[in-house]
């Protein structure tokens, strides 16, 4: 299994406040890595490190190395727009653009210079199929995306991201606003997507982490307490703090 992203000695500060402390983690190709931990433990901050979304927050300082395919994404000549194309992100609440289903998915490729109509049609269909949404929207591609259900909107956001052909998909609690059936559809989708992408998912739902991920990392107070194979972490964690958290006896 190859490392897609290698994180070494990562420290992150919001001004004087240290939010991540000496974090080391390997994100592997074709695997789903789940990040769990209580609110404020740094897992979402860590996720945003991976495509430099924290750059948008004032006063953030990052130390350490984050290597994507061996290259430091915090290096001086990194094009952040290109980086975010390679490392895409899905958020907690589905956030489709207020435009048609088609235009939502075509948006990225157009921005990146794709003008060929037939090529765009192909990308839109392939992306919607990959996001397991095509069958539900094929006859309303030019209707507003805002008319879709929450679960469909979230899959549309995934299709929109796939359209720019990323390497890594980051997901920040992607199902916390969805009902159980939509949640399971997204989880099923993740299993298919992982054949082609490295996926990192932040979730508050421990059962979800246990269900979908190959590797789980437990964050606490900005540190990774324990990271390892999901089935081991949930049956016999090494660290008592992990045990306390996943059995609900935390704090």
């Amino acid at each position, binding site marked *: 299994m190859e490392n897609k992203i290698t994180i070494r000695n990562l420290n992150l500060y919001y001004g004087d406040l240290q939010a991540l402390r000496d974090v080391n983690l390997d994100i592997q190709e074709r695997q789903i890595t789940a990040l769990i931990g209580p609110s404020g433990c740094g897992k979402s901050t860590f996720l945003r490190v991976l495509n430099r979304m924290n750059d948008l927050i004032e006063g953030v300082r990052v130390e350490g190395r984050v290597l994507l395919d061996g290259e430091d994404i915090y290096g001086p000549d990194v094009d952040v727009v290109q980086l975010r194309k390679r490392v895409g992100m899905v958020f907690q609440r589905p956030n489709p653009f207020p435009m048609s289903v088609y235009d939502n998915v075509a948006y990225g490729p157009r921005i990146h210079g794709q003008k060929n109509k037939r090529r765009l049609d192909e990308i839109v269909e392939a992306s919607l199929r990959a996001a397991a949404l095509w069958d539900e929207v094929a006859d309303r591609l030019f209707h507003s995306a805002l008319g879709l259900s929450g679960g469909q909107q979230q899959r549309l956001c995934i299709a929109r991201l796939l359209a720019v052909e990323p390497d890594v998909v980051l997901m920040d609690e992607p199902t916390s606003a969805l009902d159980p059936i939509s949640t399971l559809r997204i989880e099923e989708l993740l299993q298919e997507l992982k054949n082609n992408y490295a996926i990192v998912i932040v979730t508050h739902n*421990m*059962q979800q982490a*246990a269900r979908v991920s190959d590797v789980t990392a437990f964050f606490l107070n900005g540190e990774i307490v324990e990271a390892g194979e999901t089935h*081991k972490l*949930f*049956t*016999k*964690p090494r660290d008592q703090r*992990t*045990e306390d958290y*996943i*059995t*609900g*006896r*935390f*704090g």
Partner: protein
Amino acid sequence: MSNRRSFDVELADLKQDILRMASLVEQSIYKAMEALLNQDPLIAKGVITGDDAIDRLRYEVENNCIRLIATQQPMARDLRVIVTGIKILTNLERMGDHAVDIARAAMCVCGRMPTKPLERIPQMARMVQHMVKDGLDAYVHGDVEKARQMCAMDDEVDEIYNLTFQNLISYMEANPHSIPCVVYLLLVARYLERLADRATNIGEDVIYLVTGEWHELN
């Protein structure tokens, strides 16, 4: 400092239920041997009818375990406590069945047992009882070392079983008229040997409970 006090209470109850079941089974084994050694059909009968209570308790507690899995989504140690709980219940239930088997054999030999061929059967029975007790002690205290030692006794039981088997066959060859009776003693030896295996399974369950790893000790 637990946020899951009611769940903790249920897990503690589960442990108590398993111990309750274990003590019924221990008694059953003890009584079955008493029936055999004293050739007392009444005691044997008591063991046979008493098994219903063990079976009922097993299903009651097992249902509880299933309910806890369905409603509490147990993880880590909680999950191991419940999974091993189910396995120990199954082993105990089968041990109860073997006690019944011994009681039935006791009824078949009542009043016509030659004294000599008991061989080392009483010794085997004592060892098995010892193993059951130690296995449950190890479960209660999460004592891996005790579980291992208990499992090591299984080898001794097997050895005695093999010897006893040979000796009983020789005895039957020399005393053909005893065969209809002694053949039941062969079975009893076999049931005791199986009981020791079941106790060993419980030892393995305890080791999994504590370490999260399965070790074949049989």
